[in-house]
């Protein structure tokens, strides 16, 4: 029986929005090796971009010397992305539901909603010494090529 390889990558980025492109390209390289379909790839990239944008803007307050650490792991059909910032932390429960009628015209507050919509699991944690970590998990659909290799 064939087993999908385990894939791992780790990036340490300065807090600049243009670095989101680097993180996106790294993810695309990894998911291509995992035979992720185009739709899944699109939505995982979308969630990753939101997580890093949040870390840069709300976590690290766009201070370039503060780091954003991005860890990618693909094991079997499970994609796990961990994004850590060096900010003061926050309570995701305080973010209002952007789909409620009274919030529809708010120009911000949809980033976490995006992540939750496009990934299977999203969990936030704050370290006592500061910094927020978000872990996002996506279970990829079974892939026809690896299925065909199974004996």
């Amino acid at each position, binding site marked *: 029986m064939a087993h999908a390889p385990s894939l791992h990558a780790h990036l340490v980025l300065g807090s600049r929005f243009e670095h989101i492109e680097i993180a996106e390209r790294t993810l695309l390289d990894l998911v291509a090796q995992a035979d992720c379909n185009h739709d899944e790839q*699109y939505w995982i990239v979308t969630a990753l*971009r939101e997580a890093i944008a949040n870390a840069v803007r709300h976590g690290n307050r766009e201070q370039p010397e503060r780091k954003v650490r991005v860890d990618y792991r693909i094991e079997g059909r499970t994609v796990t992305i961990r994004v850590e910032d060096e900010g003061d932390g926050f309570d995701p429960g305080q973010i209002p539901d952007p789909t409620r009628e009274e919030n529809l*015209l*708010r*120009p*911000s*507050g949809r*980033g976490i*909603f995006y992540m939750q919509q496009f990934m299977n699991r999203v969990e936030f944690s704050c370290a006592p010494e500061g910094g927020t970590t978000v872990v996002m998990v996506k279970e990829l659909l079974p892939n026809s090529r690896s299925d065909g290799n199974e004996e």
Partner: protein
Amino acid sequence: MKSEIRDHGDVRVINLSGKITIGSGDVKIRELIDSALADGKKNIVFDLAGVSSIDSSGIGELVACYTTVTKQDGQLKLLRMSPKINDIMQVTQLITVFDVFDDEQEALASFD
């Protein structure tokens, strides 16, 4: 993100292409709206056919543009959203806010 402006009578159609994302495209669409209003164009269509992705900042900026135009007694409508952008507009419920068209002539006629 790239843009191209086409005026049809009182309606300004703005073709957008590429990514509308944080730090670049989101700011540009605000500038395009400000420019249209400064030119006296209050009826505006964003043609999104060439837009490959839009993040939450881009969506937020679309909403801000909508509010700005509406406050000026104008209208901002959307044209030719890709299936993925349509999905985003559905899950965010913003499909209930914007008038959305697949056909440019219908979009233009809707201002009459």
